[in-house]
């Protein structure tokens, strides 16, 4: 079973993030980046699924030079090799363009399953997995909270608000994984040292036969028109109990539409 995991390099969600005022894209200069934490779950599931077989786990990312860190992290966790698509013309790409690049890159790889996170932690659109599946004509089983691979069949449990569905698909297929699927492993020191020697292939748009005009800010179907930082949190309100504390609390919660 060969599995490709698509991972995104994102600005650290715990840092102060902002947009670049010149073109309304995410400011990637100011903050440290990392492998999207939600994508670590996809890496974990891919590693588990590949564990007993003799297949390989390949980690694939589209992103700037620093995105090599995300590939490396997945290799440290145990993936076998990496593919990094990097090209200046990719900057500003939207989900549509990202899915095109991923689909073309997947075309150069051998895979039975393609794993994705449920959503990136920066763009958070949650659409790339299905867009890639559409482009490749593959079945997509998304938001899997439990993933079982048996032969060429993948079975996924999806937990919805009112029902739990169990879905199976036959490889080749696209699978996206939630953060309920099981805690991702920490890389061991052995894994970190081993990752140094694992191969990473660097690809450009021309390697994939993609014309620069199909991707990037110019080709984006969506555009960020304006942005503003969220207003700072206001100070809490202290309710003093003068016998009517319960009523006041209820009124406060009602005024904020919590009850």
């Amino acid at each position, binding site marked *: 079973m060969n599995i490709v995991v698509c991972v995104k390099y994102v600005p650290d969600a715990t840092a102060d993030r902002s947009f670049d005022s010149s073109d309304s894209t995410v400011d990637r200069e100011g903050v440290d980046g990392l492998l999207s934490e939600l994508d670590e779950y996809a890496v974990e599931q891919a590693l588990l699924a590949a564990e007993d077989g003799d297949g390989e786990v390949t980690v694939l990312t589209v992103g700037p030079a620093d995105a090599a860190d995300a590939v490396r992290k997945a290799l440290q966790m145990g993936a076998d090799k990496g593919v990094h698509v990097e090209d200046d013309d990719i900057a500003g790409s939207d989900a549509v363009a990202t899915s095109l690049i991923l689909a073309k890159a997947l075309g150069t790889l051998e895979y039975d399953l393609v794993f994705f996170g449920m959503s990136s932690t920066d763009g958070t659109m949650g659409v790339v997995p299905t867009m890639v599946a559409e482009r490749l004509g593959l079945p997509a089983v998304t938001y899997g909270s439990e993933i079982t691979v048996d032969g060429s069949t993948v079975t996924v449990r999806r937990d919805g608000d009112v029902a739990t569905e169990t879905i199976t698909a036959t490889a080749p297929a696209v699978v996206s994984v939630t953060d309920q699927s099981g805690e991702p492993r920490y890389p061991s*020191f*052995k894994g970190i*040292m081993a990752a140094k020697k694992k191969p990473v292939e660097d690809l450009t748009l021309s390697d994939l036969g993609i014309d620069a005009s199909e991707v990037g800010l110019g080709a984006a179907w969506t555009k960020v028109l304006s942005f503003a930082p969220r207003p700072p949190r206001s100070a809490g309100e202290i309710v003093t109990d003068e016998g009517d504390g319960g009523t006041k609390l209820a009124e406060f919660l009602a005024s904020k539409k919590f009850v």
Partner: protein
Amino acid sequence: MAYSTLSPEHEAFRKVVRDFAQAEVAPRVAQWDRDHHFPVDLVAKMGELGLFGLTAPEEYGGSGGDFTSLCVAIEELGRVDQSIGITLEAAVGLGINPILTFGNDAQKAQWLPDLVAGQALAGFGLTEPGAGSDAGATATKAVLADGEWVVDGAKQFITNSGSSITSVVTVTARTGVRDGGRPEISTIMIPSGTPGFVAEAAYDKLGWHISDTHPLSFTGCRVPEENLLGERGRGYAQFLATLDDGRIAIAALAVGCIEACLDLAREYALDRQTFGGPIGRKQGVAFQIADLAVAARAARALTYEAAAMKDAGVGGQELKQAASIAKLYATEQAVTATRIATQVFGGYGFMEEYPVARFYRDAKILEIGEGTSEVQRMLIARGLGLPVE
């Protein structure tokens, strides 16, 4: 990434251990400390992460890594909690290393896999009621009779020796008398549960509440002759050989303590308001925190220089001197750092609710264990060729 003299791999590993400590240790450590609880489940997770096997060969489940990586792990755990840091330090330095260095193949195969996996712990009993700094004064005796060692005596302050997963303790004992009357000292492995071996009730300690420390007693305790670790009569020399590593590792633990004090004090000084502004705007506070940054950096430099020497295969007097210098400086600075940090916290620093109070209690032992500050000064002075007795 910030500049580092360590390799990118060591820094990546530091990040992993830091995340691990934040996720697995930080949320639970205050409660464990209050309850004097030794977290066997955490030890197992540390084992899964490969921390106990960092310097062990792959055939026993280790990573075949270097000593620097172990120091990084101890530092990062120690930055969140010193007891957890010493649990790792002692498990590797005193538990695994003597078996790895002096054990025969059968002994290694029997004990190492579980120790490396974090499924078991081993203690090393050198100190006795009447033999601490003067470790050669060991009074515990082992007599060979009918193919068995019969051990009688007592050990004092032995780390990881009485936990529910302690599988074995290695002890030094007199096994005879040399020509000239000096005692012959050997090292013997005593499995937990051997009749006559009792790990007495845990100590009520000033700090390191989470760490497992017991007095041990041996009364007619019999183990097979094969439980001799290394060569008969080489016990004291073997123990001396493991000391340099231990000192560097304790220095790494102290570096973690200083860094914790720096982080906590800096954050508090920015936050705490007096006389209409944060206390950190006052030089009296800010300059002390500046000193903490200097101490952290200097202690770290000495520690990782010594670790790099060890990894580069430097041995003998040169390594001993570097290890003692790092241990002495880092541990004394750690004690100073906890005093400064609690002072910055004012009355809150004296409250158990705040981690600085725990660090304050935990730091003192750093100046005592694995060779007191006085012993380090004595060794360093001797290393300089001074005729210190």
